[in-house]
């Protein structure tokens, strides 16, 4: 016993000694100056990040600080003026005319006008460049400048919700001719000017005093990149950053002290899914697909993967709880039903399924672990296969028979057309549902809001019957900041007004 006590004591002495030396030299940690907001970036796109808002590797934490959209969204997701002050359409919703704000200047002093808007929209919808924004605004067939402050958009089909689509957080306005420079030296109209862009280190932005919605309250913003999510929560707990745009619901206990931290839980439209390729056996059989989806207790799965209050269950609909077209179905766990469907499909002894996943994003591995346990009683035996994070989107996603998927929040019209339409580039399961396509066309060109809503509801109900995409939940975003950070409303990032934030 003596030996143990002595050695413990000694270890303590060694550690304490080293610490004393260390602190004597280090002189304590740094503290924040009042006008700086430090936002942690998760390095999702890493070294390939660019400030080009239309690029797939856009540096998402900063693009909305530097650039503005034509149309923004309010807290309740109704479209509000941003760089456009007015918009109206013709009767069949195929031609839209927008009036642009007068006298807005880019950071370099040049004036924003309709030529810049046309240039920006042309880049978004350029099939050669194939921007992710094209999936949202691809229905725009032509953008024309009528005069300096009037923009006309012609659509290939009627779309009642074009203003909502234009409020996509990536549909930002860049200056004419900027495609080669915007990636590293961005010039926008937004509340902040980027002075240093370093996606693997710390990016810096300073206030734009001439911002058309009023000068920002902050002097500057710093965005250090912290790739490891545990390190990021540690940095916030230790006061090295002020704001985590999103963190794990299960770690909020770290930030329980309201005198030090503000925790915001924001229902969002982000979702994970397990996708089953319909061109692979046995997922070509709709009975198997349905069995795989109804064998799950979605509330329990959501709680396990995301933590208590970490998400809102959904019945395979990608339309989230804050969307006016949201459909609330009944999809309780049905083990017997699943067994019967499997038996009917020729699997009376259950079925073996290999699901590919990767830790490329949080929750993607836990989802399969939880799913594996949930479906066991129905005779569904899941083999979890880890794929490498870097090759995941390229080699696994849309290629293996069953894999985990992840999507950000999108309005109903967009997500349904982008992921579920037969012809969509990113239809991840290869499912060809001609009936669904027709329903989508009909819904989007219905001018009457109530009728349109009914049609979108019918679409989601139709999908629940035979889709190959299992969507268990929408994530509740957990945003944590130091208590001194004021002016961030508990709403999704698209609607945060950066110029209104202050650090007390």
């Amino acid at each position, binding site marked *: 016993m003596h030996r143990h006590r002595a050695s413990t004591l000694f270890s303590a002495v060694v550690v304490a000694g080293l610490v004393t030396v260390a602190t004597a030299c280090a002189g304590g940690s740094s503290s924040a100056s009042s006008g700086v907001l430090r936002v942690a970036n998760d390095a999702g796109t890493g070294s390939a990040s660019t400030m080009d808002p239309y690029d797939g590797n856009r540096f998402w934490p900063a693009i909305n600080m530097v650039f503005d959209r034509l149309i923004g969204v309010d807290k309740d997701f109704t479209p509000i003026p941003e760089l456009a002050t007015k918009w109206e359409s013709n009767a069949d919703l195929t031609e839209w005319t927008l009036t642009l704000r007068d006298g807005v200047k880019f950071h370099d002093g040049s004036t924003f006008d309709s030529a810049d808007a046309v240039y920006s929209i042309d880049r978004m919808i350029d099939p050669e460049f194939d921007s992710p924004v094209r999936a949202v605004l691809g229905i725009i067939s032509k953008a024309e400048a009528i005069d300096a402050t009037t923009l006309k958009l012609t659509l290939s089909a009627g779309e009642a919700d074009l203003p909502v689509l234009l409020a996509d957080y990536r549909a930002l306005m860049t200056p004419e001719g900027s495609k080669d420079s915007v990636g590293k030296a961005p010039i926008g109209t937004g509340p902040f000017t980027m002075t240093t862009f370093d996606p693997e280190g710390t990016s810096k932005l300073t206030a734009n005093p001439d911002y058309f919605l009023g000068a920002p309250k902050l002097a500057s913003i710093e965005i250090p990149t912290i790739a490891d*999510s*545990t390190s990021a*929560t540690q940095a916030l*707990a230790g006061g090295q950053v002020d704001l985590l745009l999103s963190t*794990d619901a*299960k*770690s909020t*206990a*770290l930030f329980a002290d309201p005198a030090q931290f503000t925790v915001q839980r924001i229902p969002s439209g982000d979702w994970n899914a397990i996708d089953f390729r319909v061109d692979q056996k046995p997922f070509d059989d709709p009975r198997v697909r349905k069995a795989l989806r109804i064998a799950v*207790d979605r*509330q*329990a*799965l959501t*709680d*396990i*993967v995301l*933590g*208590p209050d970490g998400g809102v269950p959904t019945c395979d609909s990608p339309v989230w709880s804050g969307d006016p077209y949201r459909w609330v179905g009944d999809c309780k766990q049905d083990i017997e039903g699943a067994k019967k469907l499997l038996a009917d499909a020729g699997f009376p002894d259950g079925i073996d399924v290999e699901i590919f996943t990767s*830790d490329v994003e949080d929750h993607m*591995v*836990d989802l*399969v*672990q*939880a799913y*594996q*346990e949930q479906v066991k009683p129905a005779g569904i035996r899941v083999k*979890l*296969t*880890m794929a*490498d*994070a*870097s090759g995941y989107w390229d080699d696994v996603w849309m290629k293996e028979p069953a894999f985990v998927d992840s999507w950000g929040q999108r309005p109903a019209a967009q997500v349904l057309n982008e992921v579920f339409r037969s012809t969509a580039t990113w239809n991840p399961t290869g499912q060809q549902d001609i009936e669904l396509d027709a329903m989508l066309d009909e819904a989007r060109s219905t001018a009457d809001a109530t009728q349109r809503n009914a049609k979108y509801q019918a679409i989601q109900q139709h999908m629940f019957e035979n889709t190959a995409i299992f969507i268990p939940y929408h994530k509740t975003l957990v945003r944590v900041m130091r208590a001194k950070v004021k002016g961030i409303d508990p709403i999704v990032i698209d609607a945060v007004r950066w110029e209104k934030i202050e650090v007390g």
Partner: protein
Amino acid sequence: MTDLARASFEPVKFAAPGRRRAWLSVGAVIVFGHVLLAIVAPWLPLQPVAKQNSGAILQGPSAAHWLGTDNLGRDVLARTLFGGRPSIGLAVASVVLAAVLGFAIGMVASLAGGWVDEVLMRVNDVLLALPSLLVLLLVASFIGRDSGVLIATLALMYAPPIARLVRTASLNVLTRDFIVAARLRGASRRELVISEVLPNIRGVVLTEVAMQFTWILLAFSSLSFLGLGANPPTPEWGLMIAEGRGYMTIAPLPVVAPIVMLASLVLAVNSTVDRSSSDGTP
């Protein structure tokens, strides 16, 4: 860490004579306990290792979960007791393969001598110079984390020190008078290896192998920690530590329990090796 150990030298002689027995018993008993546990874990009255409880996430100890639950509401006690099986199995397999490989290379080099010896030892130097964790990261990331691949890689990384040791030890023995005498009598080299060299170097090699076992345990846990080791939902100490690390300040047990197990096994093996190797010194 593992490179450090791989490249540094013979185990250090340790512990005063009067205390040796105590170290032997404590260390050996712990090692034995770990091995026994790894074997009998499936027959213990534990909760299923994969069973999740959506109402009990990151909870402290309770009657149902003696060591609380992890971030998916699973029983930490069961996972910890099962958690040694993959790492111990993998470490044993790699170390045995490394020993066989290293032994073969070392013996061939020492018996053949000349250019064969020179070539083998230069290749050996080259393998020794490879940063092992970097190689493991590369292999696990690019080729895959299949246990066969990992075992082969680990064996290749850990054979060189054994080869060097065996060669030196066997050269030592081969030049002794009684061996020279035996050779003069016309004894074949193979006979000599079996009858004279093997028994003489057994102790040294066993010590090295035991030390390597602990380094491989640590290397595998580092790999799991960096997300390239064991496959979820396998209960494995390194993976458990990695999964629980983010919640360490909220629920320490899912991290502390596997750490205690991993550290106690490594410590016990090290102290036993220390003891037995100091027996061999004159």
